[in-house]
């Protein structure tokens, strides 16, 4: 099936998938926190658009609620909170030196290929589009993890965490046209609580080690030295 033969909705969804994947890569190579947060908000916005698009074309009203929730949480509330934290900690001028940026980027690309490999059996039961949607969301998740591994700032970790959530959300919207409403509300509630908890944690980490660099959290070991 060639792309020209798909309907406009599917084409748009595929483009969105590609863009969401792109934002993940952008986040991966980003050393400045404010830009990282901005790109994260962009990803949230793309998700909102995708959800609204799905809601419109499938005529599914509860997806509108999801879209509004995403907009409120992932585009406005969480980026705003993180941004405030960065400004408060006076970290907006710092550039985090990333080790092996090229290696991380290449690792990201291979993770993307890996997600296609893992999910390939999906093709047999449904369309290529589903494979793409699921694979892109899985790679967004994996890239989010890679982001957490490669960055040292707690804020970058939160962004990675939330972008993993974004990947999941994308999968839920595109592959299954949204989970049942009660589940989606539950997930949104969890995300909200997690965001609040992260805020509390920033405060705690700051008061305990006077920095948000999680490399300094290194007191506990698997075996005592």
């Amino acid at each position, binding site marked *: 099936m060639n792309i020209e033969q798909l309907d*406009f909705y599917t084409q748009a969804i595929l*483009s969105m998938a*590609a863009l969401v*994947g792109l934002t993940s890569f952008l986040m991966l190579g980003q050393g400045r926190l404010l830009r990282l947060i901005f790109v994260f908000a962009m990803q949230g916005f793309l998700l909102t658009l995708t959800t609204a698009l799905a809601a419109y074309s499938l005529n599914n009203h509860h997806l509108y609620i999801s879209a509004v929730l995403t907009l409120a949480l992932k585009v406005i509330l969480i980026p705003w909170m993180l941004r405030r934290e960065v400004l408060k900690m006076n970290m907006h001028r710092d550039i985090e030196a990333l080790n092996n940026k090229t290696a991380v980027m290449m690792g990201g*690309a291979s993770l993307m290929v890996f997600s296609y490999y893992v999910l390939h059996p999906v093709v047999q039961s449904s369309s*290529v589009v589903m494979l793409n949607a699921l694979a892109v969301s899985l790679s967004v998740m994996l890239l989010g993890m890679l982001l957490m591994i490669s960055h040292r700032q707690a804020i970058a970790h939160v962004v990675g965490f939330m972008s993993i959530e974004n990947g999941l959300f994308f999968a839920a919207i595109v592959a299954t046209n949204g989970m049942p409403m009660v589940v989606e509300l539950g997930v949104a509630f969890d995300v909200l609580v997690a965001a609040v908890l992260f805020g509390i944690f920033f405060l705690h980490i700051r008061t305990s080690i006077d920095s948000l660099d999680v490399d300094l959290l290194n007191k506990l070991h698997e075996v005592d030295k």
Partner: protein
Amino acid sequence: MNWLIAVLQTTLFVALAPLLAGWVKCCKCRLQNRKAPSIFQPYRDLLKLTYKQPVVSEQASWVFIKAPYIIFSATVLAATVVPLIAVDLPTSASADVIVMVGFFAFARFFLALAGLDIGTAFGGMGSSREMTISSLAEPAMLMAIFTLTMTASTTNLSFAISHVLNEGLVLRPSFVFALAALVLVAIAETGRIPVDNPATHLELTMIHEAMILEYSGRHLALIEWASQLKLMLYGVLIANIFLPWGIAESFGVQALGYGLLAIMGKLAVLAVFLAIAETLVAKMRLFRVQEYLSFAYLLGLLGMLSHIILEAAR
């Protein structure tokens, strides 16, 4: 007849290039709250330079004297490959996009040689930087272009553009990536901010200007013209590949006229974007250019991947 139009198109290319440069400069001045020079100023500059007597160093070899002519003609030849106002012209049908990249490489080779020839510190420095950057930019560019050519199943620009044109509006994820990659590469190759600053030759970080520091008179005019032509070439490439609508598919006067208007409009808009970007973005450190270009490469690669994975027939 066709050949006549082809020659006409190339002439238009060469003739309009300074105008585009003037327009970009004009937009930039307005954006920076300066009084803008006339958009025809580049023509006057070129004219002025051709009147002047070129000064050539005693150490200069034939390479230094011949290089401007070679560079200019190679760039003009590259311009014949790219469809400006009409597709299916004999010149562009006979050569494909790889030839175009080859012409660019040829011109760059002589430019770098000329920079080295005199033996000044600046020239050598500029040449080495130019080669470094182009060695990184070329793979990214080819990756972006291959994404396109794979979609159209041809490396010929003219046919590829017709293909995109005939297909109608299709949202292709791969094109988004390829466009972004090509824009980044174009900025690097034409020596614009943030990679190089075309407005100054007093910085230690200059690249293009460092190589041509020793040129004067008509030699300088030719090199300047060639680089203006290159800017326009990239602009046309981006505009016509990704937004080919308006380009003439037949050779009637009306179609060609519309084609000319369309491409001028597209280029004018692109130039405004370029000016805005140059005003907003600061020039980056030389050592970060490789990060910038590897990002472009990554985009090109993603474009290619998403073409293969998302769009290819199964």
